[in-house]
Protein backbone atom coordinates (compact mmCIF):
# COMPACT_ATOMS: atom_id res chain seq x y z
CA UNK A 1 0.00 0.00 0.00
CA UNK A 2 2.94 2.32 0.66
CA UNK A 3 4.13 1.58 -2.87
CA UNK A 4 0.63 2.20 -4.23
CA UNK A 5 0.51 5.57 -2.50
CA UNK A 6 3.90 6.42 -3.94
CA UNK A 7 3.03 5.22 -7.43
CA UNK A 8 -0.22 7.16 -7.59
CA UNK A 9 1.64 10.27 -6.46
CA UNK A 10 4.76 9.98 -8.58
CA UNK A 11 3.30 8.73 -11.85
CA UNK A 12 0.49 11.19 -11.84
CA UNK A 13 0.40 13.49 -14.86
CA UNK A 14 0.30 17.14 -13.87
CA UNK A 15 -3.01 18.55 -15.02
CA UNK A 16 -4.17 22.12 -14.96
CA UNK A 17 -7.61 23.15 -13.74
CA UNK A 18 -9.53 26.29 -13.03
CA UNK A 19 -10.18 25.97 -9.32
CA UNK A 20 -12.87 27.63 -7.21
CA UNK A 21 -12.02 31.07 -5.78
CA UNK A 22 -9.80 31.09 -2.72
CA UNK A 23 -8.22 27.72 -3.49
CA UNK A 24 -4.78 27.23 -1.97
CA UNK A 25 -1.82 26.71 -4.32
CA UNK A 26 -2.03 23.61 -6.52
CA UNK A 27 0.95 21.96 -4.74
CA UNK A 28 -0.87 21.91 -1.44
CA UNK A 29 -4.39 21.62 -2.83
CA UNK A 30 -4.24 17.91 -3.59
CA UNK A 31 -2.76 17.29 -0.13
CA UNK A 32 -5.70 18.94 1.55
CA UNK A 33 -8.68 18.05 -0.62
CA UNK A 34 -10.42 14.88 0.57
CA UNK A 35 -12.73 14.82 -2.47
CA UNK A 36 -15.83 14.96 -0.33
CA UNK A 37 -17.65 16.91 -3.04
CA UNK A 38 -19.45 19.30 -0.71
CA UNK A 39 -18.23 22.32 -2.69
CA UNK A 40 -19.86 20.96 -5.83
CA UNK A 41 -23.00 20.23 -3.86
CA UNK A 42 -23.42 23.77 -2.54
CA UNK A 43 -22.39 25.70 -5.64
CA UNK A 44 -25.56 27.71 -6.47
CA UNK A 45 -24.74 28.12 -10.16
CA UNK A 46 -23.59 24.49 -10.62
CA UNK A 47 -20.37 25.92 -12.02
CA UNK A 48 -18.24 23.43 -10.11
CA UNK A 49 -17.67 19.99 -11.52
CA UNK A 50 -15.45 17.03 -10.65
CA UNK A 51 -12.26 16.13 -12.43
CA UNK A 52 -13.09 12.78 -14.04
CA UNK A 53 -11.03 9.67 -14.55
CA UNK A 54 -7.73 10.94 -15.96
CA UNK A 55 -4.08 9.98 -15.82
CA UNK A 56 -3.72 12.87 -13.40
CA UNK A 57 -4.55 10.46 -10.59
CA UNK A 58 -3.83 12.99 -7.88
CA UNK A 59 -6.67 15.20 -8.99
CA UNK A 60 -9.44 12.68 -9.73
CA UNK A 61 -12.53 13.84 -7.90
CA UNK A 62 -11.27 17.32 -7.08
CA UNK A 63 -13.43 20.35 -7.96
CA UNK A 64 -12.89 22.48 -11.06
CA UNK A 65 -14.80 25.16 -12.89
CA UNK A 66 -16.85 23.94 -15.82
CA UNK A 67 -18.26 26.83 -17.82
CA UNK A 68 -20.64 24.48 -19.58
CA UNK A 69 -22.63 24.37 -16.35
CA UNK A 70 -22.22 27.91 -15.07
CA UNK A 71 -19.92 30.67 -13.94
CA UNK A 72 -18.69 31.70 -10.51
CA UNK A 73 -20.80 34.25 -8.67
CA UNK A 74 -18.15 35.14 -6.07
CA UNK A 75 -17.52 38.61 -7.49
CA UNK A 76 -21.03 39.45 -8.38
CA UNK A 77 -22.78 38.32 -5.19
CA UNK A 78 -19.95 37.61 -2.73
CA UNK A 79 -21.02 33.96 -2.70
CA UNK A 80 -17.94 31.91 -1.62
CA UNK A 81 -20.16 29.13 -0.29
CA UNK A 82 -17.58 26.55 -1.38
CA UNK A 83 -14.94 28.20 0.81
CA UNK A 84 -17.29 28.26 3.79
CA UNK A 85 -18.17 24.57 3.64
CA UNK A 86 -14.75 23.11 2.77
CA UNK A 87 -13.82 20.94 5.78
CA UNK A 88 -10.07 20.85 5.17
CA UNK A 89 -9.49 24.44 4.09
CA UNK A 90 -8.39 23.41 0.62
CA UNK A 91 -10.63 26.32 -0.35
CA UNK A 92 -10.17 29.23 2.05
CA UNK A 93 -12.29 32.31 2.38
CA UNK A 94 -10.05 35.18 1.26
CA UNK A 95 -9.94 38.46 3.20
CA UNK A 96 -11.11 40.42 0.19
CA UNK A 97 -12.48 38.88 -2.95
CA UNK A 98 -10.86 41.66 -5.00
CA UNK A 99 -7.37 40.17 -4.76
CA UNK A 100 -8.48 36.68 -5.78
CA UNK A 101 -7.98 35.35 -9.29
CA UNK A 102 -9.37 32.08 -10.60
CA UNK A 103 -7.82 32.37 -14.03
CA UNK A 104 -8.22 34.45 -17.13
CA UNK A 105 -10.29 34.54 -20.30
CA UNK A 106 -9.14 33.91 -23.82
CA UNK A 107 -11.46 34.81 -26.71
CA UNK A 108 -11.24 32.94 -30.00
CA UNK A 109 -11.99 36.03 -32.07
CA UNK A 110 -12.74 34.29 -35.33
CA UNK A 111 -15.74 32.54 -33.83
CA UNK A 112 -17.08 35.59 -31.99
CA UNK A 113 -20.38 36.96 -33.34
CA UNK A 114 -20.25 40.29 -31.46
CA UNK A 115 -23.45 39.57 -29.53
CA UNK A 116 -21.95 41.43 -26.55
CA UNK A 117 -23.72 39.19 -24.04
CA UNK A 118 -20.42 38.88 -22.22
CA UNK A 119 -20.49 42.60 -21.41
CA UNK A 120 -23.77 42.14 -19.64
CA UNK A 121 -22.46 39.30 -17.45
CA UNK A 122 -19.00 40.58 -16.55
CA UNK A 123 -18.93 41.54 -12.84
CA UNK A 124 -15.71 43.61 -13.13
CA UNK A 125 -16.01 46.90 -14.93
CA UNK A 126 -13.24 47.39 -17.42
CA UNK A 127 -12.19 43.75 -17.62
CA UNK A 128 -14.01 43.34 -20.92
CA UNK A 129 -13.22 46.01 -23.48
CA UNK A 130 -14.28 46.82 -26.99
CA UNK A 131 -11.58 48.42 -29.16
CA UNK A 132 -12.24 51.97 -30.26
CA UNK A 133 -10.37 53.13 -33.39
CA UNK A 134 -10.63 56.76 -32.26
CA UNK A 135 -9.52 56.70 -28.64
CA UNK A 136 -9.82 54.74 -25.41
CA UNK A 137 -11.59 51.35 -25.68
CA UNK A 138 -15.30 51.20 -24.85
CA UNK A 139 -16.24 49.80 -21.45
CA UNK A 140 -20.02 49.68 -21.69
CA UNK A 141 -22.37 48.19 -24.24
CA UNK A 142 -24.32 51.39 -24.72
CA UNK A 143 -21.20 53.30 -25.81
CA UNK A 144 -20.36 50.89 -28.61
CA UNK A 145 -21.57 52.16 -32.00
CA UNK A 146 -23.65 49.54 -33.79
CA UNK A 147 -21.53 49.93 -36.92
CA UNK A 148 -18.53 48.58 -35.01
CA UNK A 149 -20.36 45.77 -33.24
CA UNK A 150 -21.86 44.32 -36.39
CA UNK A 151 -21.80 40.55 -36.58
CA UNK A 152 -19.21 40.56 -39.39
CA UNK A 153 -17.23 43.46 -38.02
CA UNK A 154 -13.50 42.71 -37.75
CA UNK A 155 -13.48 44.41 -34.35
CA UNK A 156 -14.23 42.01 -31.50
CA UNK A 157 -14.29 42.35 -27.72
CA UNK A 158 -11.02 41.90 -25.91
CA UNK A 159 -10.03 41.14 -22.32
CA UNK A 160 -7.88 43.20 -20.00
CA UNK A 161 -6.10 40.36 -18.24
CA UNK A 162 -4.81 42.60 -15.48
CA UNK A 163 -8.41 43.04 -14.34
CA UNK A 164 -10.12 39.80 -15.44
CA UNK A 165 -10.59 37.34 -12.56
CA UNK A 166 -11.68 34.36 -14.63
CA UNK A 167 -15.09 33.76 -13.08
CA UNK A 168 -16.28 32.30 -16.37
CA UNK A 169 -19.67 33.99 -16.41
CA UNK A 170 -18.97 35.41 -19.88
CA UNK A 171 -17.88 32.01 -21.18
CA UNK A 172 -21.03 30.45 -19.76
CA UNK A 173 -23.42 32.76 -21.62
CA UNK A 174 -21.34 32.97 -24.82
CA UNK A 175 -23.65 31.55 -27.55
CA UNK A 176 -20.92 30.37 -29.95
CA UNK A 177 -18.83 29.19 -26.95
CA UNK A 178 -15.76 30.98 -28.20
CA UNK A 179 -14.42 31.96 -24.77
CA UNK A 180 -12.07 29.76 -22.76
CA UNK A 181 -11.17 30.09 -19.12
CA UNK A 182 -7.46 29.56 -18.61
CA UNK A 183 -6.16 28.41 -15.25
CA UNK A 184 -3.80 30.44 -13.10
CA UNK A 185 -0.80 28.48 -14.39
CA UNK A 186 -1.76 28.77 -18.03
CA UNK A 187 -2.11 32.46 -17.53
CA UNK A 188 1.39 32.67 -16.15
CA UNK A 189 2.75 30.69 -19.08
CA UNK A 190 1.13 32.96 -21.63
CA UNK A 191 2.08 36.19 -19.92
Amino acid at each position, binding site marked *: *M*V*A*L*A*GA*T*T*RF*SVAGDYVRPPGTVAEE*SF*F*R*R*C*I*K*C*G*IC*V*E*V*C*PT*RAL*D*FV*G*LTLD*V*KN*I*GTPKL*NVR*HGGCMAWRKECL*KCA*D*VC*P*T*QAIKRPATIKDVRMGSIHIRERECINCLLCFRECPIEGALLFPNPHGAPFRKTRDIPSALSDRNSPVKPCVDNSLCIGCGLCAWVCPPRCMDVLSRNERRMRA
Partner: protein
Amino acid sequence: MMLRSARTLSRFSGLALIAAGTMAALSTGTFCYWRFGWIRLICPIGFVEASLSSGTIYRSLIGPFLVVLGLVVLLGRVFCSWLCPSNLVVTHIARLVKRGSSIGIMKRTVLFQARLASTLPVLDYRDGLALLVGSLVGIALFGYPFLSTFCPIGVITRNVISLFAHFRLGTDLFLLLLPVAAVYLFSWGCIAGCPLGSLQRFPARMSKVLRPVGETQKCVNCKACTEVCPVQLHPGAKYDPGTCTKCFLCVETCPKKAIVIQLGVK
Protein backbone atom coordinates in the same frame (compact mmCIF):
# COMPACT_ATOMS: atom_id res chain seq x y z
CA MET B 1 -38.61 -9.17 6.16
CA MET B 2 -39.43 -5.95 7.95
CA LEU B 3 -35.84 -5.56 9.03
CA ARG B 4 -34.69 -6.08 5.48
CA SER B 5 -36.90 -3.35 4.04
CA ALA B 6 -35.93 -1.02 6.88
CA ARG B 7 -32.30 -1.62 6.05
CA THR B 8 -32.77 -0.94 2.34
CA LEU B 9 -34.77 2.17 3.14
CA SER B 10 -32.11 3.44 5.48
CA ARG B 11 -29.39 2.79 2.91
CA PHE B 12 -31.26 4.64 0.21
CA SER B 13 -32.17 7.51 2.51
CA GLY B 14 -28.52 8.49 2.88
CA LEU B 15 -28.18 8.79 -0.88
CA ALA B 16 -31.56 10.52 -1.12
CA LEU B 17 -30.41 13.10 1.41
CA ILE B 18 -27.37 13.90 -0.72
CA ALA B 19 -29.56 14.10 -3.82
CA ALA B 20 -32.03 16.42 -2.08
CA GLY B 21 -29.20 18.52 -0.69
CA THR B 22 -27.75 18.87 -4.16
CA MET B 23 -31.05 19.72 -5.82
CA ALA B 24 -31.81 22.40 -3.24
CA ALA B 25 -28.14 23.50 -3.04
CA LEU B 26 -28.30 23.13 0.74
CA SER B 27 -25.04 22.31 2.38
CA THR B 28 -26.29 19.10 4.00
CA GLY B 29 -23.03 17.49 3.08
CA THR B 30 -21.97 14.11 1.84
CA PHE B 31 -20.92 10.80 3.32
CA CYS B 32 -17.43 12.24 3.69
CA TYR B 33 -18.57 15.32 5.58
CA TRP B 34 -22.09 15.81 6.98
CA ARG B 35 -23.17 19.30 7.86
CA PHE B 36 -26.62 19.98 9.31
CA GLY B 37 -26.52 23.46 10.74
CA TRP B 38 -24.06 23.23 13.59
CA ILE B 39 -23.84 19.43 13.51
CA ARG B 40 -20.71 18.33 11.70
CA LEU B 41 -19.57 14.77 11.06
CA ILE B 42 -16.37 13.95 9.25
CA CYS B 43 -15.27 10.67 7.70
CA PRO B 44 -12.59 9.44 10.14
CA ILE B 45 -10.43 8.14 7.31
CA GLY B 46 -10.69 11.45 5.49
CA PHE B 47 -9.70 13.36 8.60
CA VAL B 48 -6.67 11.16 9.33
CA GLU B 49 -5.64 11.23 5.67
CA ALA B 50 -5.87 14.97 5.24
CA SER B 51 -4.06 15.58 8.53
CA LEU B 52 -1.24 13.24 7.55
CA SER B 53 -0.85 14.44 3.99
CA SER B 54 -1.00 18.15 4.65
CA GLY B 55 0.89 17.99 7.95
CA THR B 56 -1.68 20.14 9.72
CA ILE B 57 -4.28 19.13 12.23
CA TYR B 58 -7.57 20.77 11.42
CA ARG B 59 -8.74 22.10 14.73
CA SER B 60 -12.26 22.65 13.48
CA LEU B 61 -12.48 18.97 12.54
CA ILE B 62 -11.28 17.44 15.81
CA GLY B 63 -14.74 17.85 17.31
CA PRO B 64 -16.61 16.16 14.45
CA PHE B 65 -13.98 13.39 14.39
CA LEU B 66 -14.43 12.68 18.09
CA VAL B 67 -18.21 12.71 17.70
CA VAL B 68 -17.95 10.10 14.94
CA LEU B 69 -15.66 7.95 17.10
CA GLY B 70 -18.13 8.35 19.96
CA LEU B 71 -20.99 7.20 17.74
CA VAL B 72 -19.00 4.14 16.71
CA VAL B 73 -18.24 3.36 20.36
CA LEU B 74 -21.91 3.72 21.18
CA LEU B 75 -23.55 1.99 18.23
CA GLY B 76 -20.76 -0.09 16.72
CA ARG B 77 -20.42 -0.52 12.99
CA VAL B 78 -24.02 0.31 12.12
CA PHE B 79 -22.78 2.57 9.32
CA CYS B 80 -21.51 -0.47 7.39
CA SER B 81 -24.83 -2.20 6.97
CA TRP B 82 -27.34 0.61 7.46
CA LEU B 83 -25.83 3.50 5.50
CA CYS B 84 -22.78 2.50 3.46
CA PRO B 85 -23.70 3.16 -0.20
CA SER B 86 -20.92 0.93 -1.41
CA ASN B 87 -22.47 -1.98 0.47
CA LEU B 88 -25.81 -1.11 -1.13
CA VAL B 89 -24.45 -1.14 -4.67
CA VAL B 90 -22.49 -4.32 -4.07
CA THR B 91 -25.52 -6.12 -2.59
CA HIS B 92 -27.59 -5.26 -5.62
CA ILE B 93 -24.89 -6.41 -8.01
CA ALA B 94 -24.71 -9.63 -6.01
CA ARG B 95 -28.45 -10.12 -6.34
CA LEU B 96 -28.23 -9.57 -10.10
CA VAL B 97 -25.40 -12.07 -10.40
CA LYS B 98 -27.37 -14.62 -8.40
CA ARG B 99 -30.45 -14.11 -10.54
CA GLY B 100 -28.47 -14.35 -13.76
CA SER B 101 -26.44 -17.37 -12.72
CA SER B 102 -28.61 -19.70 -14.83
CA ILE B 103 -27.42 -17.99 -18.03
CA GLY B 104 -24.34 -19.68 -19.54
CA ILE B 105 -21.76 -16.93 -19.29
CA MET B 106 -22.91 -15.87 -15.85
CA LYS B 107 -22.71 -19.45 -14.66
CA ARG B 108 -19.14 -19.62 -15.83
CA THR B 109 -18.31 -16.34 -14.09
CA VAL B 110 -19.75 -17.59 -10.84
CA LEU B 111 -17.83 -20.85 -11.13
CA PHE B 112 -14.65 -18.93 -11.94
CA GLN B 113 -15.20 -16.73 -8.95
CA ALA B 114 -15.74 -19.73 -6.69
CA ARG B 115 -12.55 -21.38 -7.97
CA LEU B 116 -10.55 -18.19 -7.55
CA ALA B 117 -11.89 -17.69 -4.06
CA SER B 118 -10.89 -21.21 -3.08
CA THR B 119 -7.30 -20.79 -4.31
CA LEU B 120 -6.66 -17.40 -2.76
CA PRO B 121 -5.81 -17.08 0.90
CA VAL B 122 -8.65 -15.98 3.13
CA LEU B 123 -7.90 -12.55 4.48
CA ASP B 124 -9.08 -11.55 7.92
CA TYR B 125 -9.17 -8.33 9.84
CA ARG B 126 -5.44 -8.39 10.57
CA ASP B 127 -4.74 -8.08 6.85
CA GLY B 128 -7.20 -5.22 6.72
CA LEU B 129 -5.37 -3.51 9.52
CA ALA B 130 -2.05 -4.02 7.72
CA LEU B 131 -3.53 -2.48 4.56
CA LEU B 132 -4.81 0.48 6.54
CA VAL B 133 -1.51 1.11 8.31
CA GLY B 134 0.38 0.72 5.01
CA SER B 135 -1.91 3.21 3.32
CA LEU B 136 -1.54 5.73 6.10
CA VAL B 137 2.26 5.42 6.08
CA GLY B 138 2.20 5.90 2.30
CA ILE B 139 -0.02 8.94 2.65
CA ALA B 140 2.26 10.45 5.29
CA LEU B 141 5.33 9.79 3.15
CA PHE B 142 4.06 11.01 -0.19
CA GLY B 143 1.54 13.58 0.94
CA TYR B 144 -1.35 12.48 -1.22
CA PRO B 145 -4.60 11.25 0.39
CA PHE B 146 -5.15 8.56 -2.24
CA LEU B 147 -7.74 6.58 -0.29
CA SER B 148 -10.23 9.39 -0.76
CA THR B 149 -9.87 9.11 -4.53
CA PHE B 150 -10.49 5.37 -4.68
CA CYS B 151 -12.92 5.01 -1.79
CA PRO B 152 -16.13 3.54 -3.30
CA ILE B 153 -18.24 5.54 -0.84
CA GLY B 154 -16.62 8.71 -2.13
CA VAL B 155 -17.01 7.68 -5.77
CA ILE B 156 -20.72 6.95 -5.30
CA THR B 157 -21.23 10.19 -3.37
CA ARG B 158 -19.54 12.29 -6.03
CA ASN B 159 -21.52 10.64 -8.77
CA VAL B 160 -24.83 11.18 -6.98
CA ILE B 161 -23.92 14.87 -6.66
CA SER B 162 -22.86 14.99 -10.29
CA LEU B 163 -26.09 13.27 -11.35
CA PHE B 164 -28.34 15.69 -9.51
CA ALA B 165 -26.31 18.85 -10.16
CA HIS B 166 -25.39 18.29 -13.81
CA PHE B 167 -27.61 15.36 -14.81
CA ARG B 168 -24.71 13.19 -15.83
CA LEU B 169 -22.37 10.66 -14.30
CA GLY B 170 -18.63 11.04 -14.04
CA THR B 171 -16.04 8.80 -15.62
CA ASP B 172 -14.63 8.02 -12.18
CA LEU B 173 -17.54 5.62 -11.76
CA PHE B 174 -15.16 3.05 -13.26
CA LEU B 175 -13.20 3.18 -10.02
CA LEU B 176 -16.10 1.22 -8.48
CA LEU B 177 -14.84 -1.82 -10.35
CA LEU B 178 -11.99 -2.09 -7.85
CA PRO B 179 -14.11 -2.86 -4.77
CA VAL B 180 -16.53 -4.97 -6.80
CA ALA B 181 -13.59 -7.05 -7.97
CA ALA B 182 -12.23 -7.20 -4.44
CA VAL B 183 -15.56 -8.49 -3.17
CA TYR B 184 -16.46 -10.84 -6.02
CA LEU B 185 -13.29 -12.22 -7.45
CA PHE B 186 -11.32 -12.38 -4.25
CA SER B 187 -14.12 -12.29 -1.67
CA TRP B 188 -12.14 -9.95 0.62
CA GLY B 189 -14.40 -6.97 0.50
CA CYS B 190 -15.75 -5.58 3.70
CA ILE B 191 -13.72 -7.85 5.95
CA ALA B 192 -10.22 -6.93 4.91
CA GLY B 193 -10.39 -4.50 2.00
CA CYS B 194 -12.25 -1.58 3.54
CA PRO B 195 -10.01 0.86 5.45
CA LEU B 196 -13.03 2.51 7.02
CA GLY B 197 -14.20 -0.83 8.41
CA SER B 198 -10.73 -1.62 9.74
CA LEU B 199 -10.59 1.73 11.47
CA GLN B 200 -14.04 1.31 13.01
CA ARG B 201 -13.23 -2.11 14.43
CA PHE B 202 -11.48 -0.95 17.59
CA PRO B 203 -13.96 1.64 18.82
CA ALA B 204 -16.82 -0.68 17.77
CA ARG B 205 -15.57 -3.37 20.17
CA MET B 206 -16.75 -1.26 23.06
CA SER B 207 -20.29 -1.03 21.73
CA LYS B 208 -22.68 -2.78 24.08
CA VAL B 209 -26.08 -2.05 22.56
CA LEU B 210 -28.00 -3.76 19.76
CA ARG B 211 -26.02 -6.97 19.75
CA PRO B 212 -27.44 -10.10 18.16
CA VAL B 213 -27.19 -12.82 20.78
CA GLY B 214 -27.94 -16.50 20.27
CA GLU B 215 -29.91 -18.54 22.78
CA THR B 216 -27.80 -21.65 23.02
CA GLN B 217 -30.56 -24.01 24.11
CA LYS B 218 -32.61 -23.28 20.98
CA CYS B 219 -29.66 -23.40 18.55
CA VAL B 220 -29.45 -26.51 16.38
CA ASN B 221 -26.08 -25.59 14.90
CA CYS B 222 -27.41 -25.39 11.34
CA LYS B 223 -24.93 -22.55 10.61
CA ALA B 224 -27.53 -20.69 8.53
CA CYS B 225 -26.62 -17.50 10.39
CA THR B 226 -22.92 -17.80 9.59
CA GLU B 227 -23.75 -18.35 5.94
CA VAL B 228 -25.80 -15.18 5.55
CA CYS B 229 -23.58 -13.07 7.78
CA PRO B 230 -21.55 -10.63 5.64
CA VAL B 231 -18.62 -11.14 8.01
CA GLN B 232 -19.19 -14.85 8.77
CA LEU B 233 -19.94 -14.67 12.47
CA HIS B 234 -21.81 -17.20 14.58
CA PRO B 235 -23.91 -15.28 17.10
CA GLY B 236 -24.56 -18.43 19.12
CA ALA B 237 -20.93 -18.59 20.16
CA LYS B 238 -18.69 -15.82 21.47
CA TYR B 239 -17.71 -13.46 18.65
CA ASP B 240 -15.75 -10.30 18.11
CA PRO B 241 -18.23 -7.41 18.45
CA GLY B 242 -15.89 -5.16 16.48
CA THR B 243 -16.59 -7.24 13.39
CA CYS B 244 -20.38 -7.32 13.65
CA THR B 245 -22.02 -4.69 11.45
CA LYS B 246 -25.42 -5.10 13.16
CA CYS B 247 -27.28 -5.91 9.97
CA PHE B 248 -29.39 -8.52 11.84
CA LEU B 249 -29.50 -10.81 8.83
CA CYS B 250 -28.85 -13.64 11.29
CA VAL B 251 -31.94 -12.69 13.31
CA GLU B 252 -34.03 -12.89 10.14
CA THR B 253 -32.69 -16.15 8.82
CA CYS B 254 -32.45 -18.28 11.97
CA PRO B 255 -34.97 -21.11 11.41
CA LYS B 256 -35.44 -21.63 15.16
CA LYS B 257 -35.72 -17.90 15.97
CA ALA B 258 -32.92 -18.49 18.43
CA ILE B 259 -31.16 -15.15 17.86
CA VAL B 260 -32.49 -12.07 19.58
CA ILE B 261 -31.35 -8.47 19.48
CA GLN B 262 -29.99 -7.52 22.85
CA LEU B 263 -30.96 -3.88 23.28
CA GLY B 264 -28.78 -2.84 26.17
CA VAL B 265 -26.16 -4.02 28.60
CA LYS B 266 -27.20 -7.12 30.48
